[in-house]
């Protein structure tokens, strides 16, 4: 696709120096007639540009891959979206909806965001997976208190969850983008440690808003719609404090998908935040606790008055 006026024409030499980096740029950009390279999110998935029916699906590109026809993809997006709203415990439907909605444009944009960044490129080359075997949890427990690894493992222990519970990606038709989606899913817990938001519904919604502003994945945006299911006070806080914080930081910060979590385990969380450009939001746990104590005090007073009469 050539263009007379390429927007954001990037000369390869300004962002790449090694032959490997140049090769990556070359495969993911398209030369214009002027010879400079324009980087645009391309649909380089040659395989599924050929129409197929459910009776002759193309072979899978990665283990567990299921190529879907267009009708199937639409049905999956609609069906899983509606059913996961009705039953939010169906994590598999939420995951499938996220995958169905991330194509055509959004997952490719995220993958290209990784390719445009040196650490992102390293992640795509190394393909690290975050599981309980790849992260040594006992080692993380031995790290200094305010390090990323320590806050992460404390959080895992407190919530009684393990890093192994993320479902594999199945419905994305590009092997690299499937890995990007998998990486995003596995990194979600680290976003909690990074932002300091708790895993209550209020914290999850605020984090989803941050993720949407940062990664632009549509499912994160839809997840924010559950702001309308929160309590009045929480909703007010979202519109006044956490929503604006999320948008401001998501947009201004670096792409959090480009953080090599395995290497940042010993980093101090505040240092990491400063590097990425994320400001710490007001401590949600603290605010909620104060509000709870306040409510309890008022309730106690009301009861005392009631009993006195």
């Amino acid at each position, binding site marked *: 696709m050539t263009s007379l006026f390429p927007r954001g024409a990037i000369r390869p030499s300004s962002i790449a120096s090694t032959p490997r980096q140049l090769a990556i740029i070359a495969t993911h950009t398209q030369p214009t007639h002027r010879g400079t390279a324009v980087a645009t999110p391309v649909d380089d998935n040659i395989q599924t540009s050929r129409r197929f*029916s*459910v*009776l*002759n*699906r*193309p*072979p*899978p590109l990665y*283990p*567990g*891959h*299921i190529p879907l*026809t267009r*009708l*199937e993809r639409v*049905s*999956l997006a609609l*069906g*899983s979206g509606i*059913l996961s709203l009705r039953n*939010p*415990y*169906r*994590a*598999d*439907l*939420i995951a*499938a909806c996220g995958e169905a909605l991330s194509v055509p444009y959004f997952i490719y944009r995220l993958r290209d965001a990784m390719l445009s960044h040196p650490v992102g490129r390293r992640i795509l080359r190394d393909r690290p997976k975050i599981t309980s075997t790849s992260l040594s949890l006992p080692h993380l427990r031995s790290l200094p208190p305010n390090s990323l690894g320590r806050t992460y493992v404390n959080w895992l222990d407190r*919530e*009684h*969850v*393990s890093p*192994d*519970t*993320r*479902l594999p990606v199945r419905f994305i038709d590009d092997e690299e983008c499937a890995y990007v989606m998998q990486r995003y899913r596995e990194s979600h817990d680290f976003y909690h440690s990074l932002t300091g938001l*708790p*895993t*209550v*519904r209020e914290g*999850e919604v605020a984090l989803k808003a941050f993720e949407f502003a940062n990664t632009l994945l549509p499912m994160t945006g839809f997840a924010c719609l559950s702001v309308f299911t929160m309590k009045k006070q929480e909703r007010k806080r979202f519109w006044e404090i956490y929503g604006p914080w999320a948008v401001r930081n998501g947009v201004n910060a670096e792409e959090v998908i480009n953080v090599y979590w395995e290497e940042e385990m010993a980093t101090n969380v505040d240092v990491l935040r400063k590097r990425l450009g994320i400001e710490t939001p007001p401590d949600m746990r603290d605010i909620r606790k104060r509000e709870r104590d306040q409510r309890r005090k008022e309730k106690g007073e009301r009861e005392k008055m009631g009993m006195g009469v």
Partner: protein
Amino acid sequence: MASRPGLRSIAAASTSASRTFAPRFVPPTSRSFASTHPASRPTTTTNDTSDRPTSFGFETVTESEKRERVAGVFSSVADSYDRMNDMMSLGVHRLWKDHYVSSLNPGYTPPGQAARPQHILDIAGGTGDIAFRHLHTAHVLNRNPDVRVTISDINPDMLEVGKKRSSILPASQQAALSFLQANAEDLTGKVADNSMDLYTVAFGIRNFSNMPAALQEAHRVLKPGGVFACLEFSKVGNALLDSVYKRWSFGAIPMIGHLVAGDRDSYQYLVESIENFPSQEDFRQLILDAGFGVAGQGYEDLTGGIAAIHRGIKPLA
């Protein structure tokens, strides 16, 4: 806070409960239409056929592996089995099963004769669909209280569903009902020779690792004059109906399985196993090979051949 552990536990459960997930990761071509290369293990010289290659959907696996994976499929679908059947066949499976049992007419006694006892063996009948119909037809419609039904299934989870559902039956019917966990390919020690009047298997035989062995066992346990009746998915004759049916099977059913039951792989296996089942004529030949006598065509197509009832009789001599 409450939603998080719930989400995590569901996610953990769905990755561990759908056991077909993990094995499917190994062969990269497992999702394609064609079979993978056959397992290259040699057959043993003993009677044990568990290393013989057979089909699991479109994959080729050994018989023992197929048994394991079918067990995984049915444990996974046991609870939502009825809802899924309704959705896959748009409720028509109920009509098929009604016609199947009423055409067999268990417990029927000709007018003027005394009611004779009958013992019915319902194979792969875990959830009880067919067995309950047998009991109703025999005890209520034919007013023959001497008819007993034994439900046999290899999968204990399906039997559990059947036991739960049987608790709402009238007491006399419950008394006539028994449950047996067994492998239909080898009922030695569990069902005696020449002991059954009627052997039924509905939508089960395509899941067997070794169909000829199951047919031979059916021949063994039936009394001379006993009836073998099999209700199973089959080949559709009409080309237009067939193309619509295939697209529904391979497109809609796995999607419905995913959305409703959270298990796409089990339903993908189910539709692939339907595709692999022999045609009406081929299965009729298998029944003849097992020693049964077949009257005329020997099968009856239902809904254009989407399902078919095969019948055979064990010869008297």
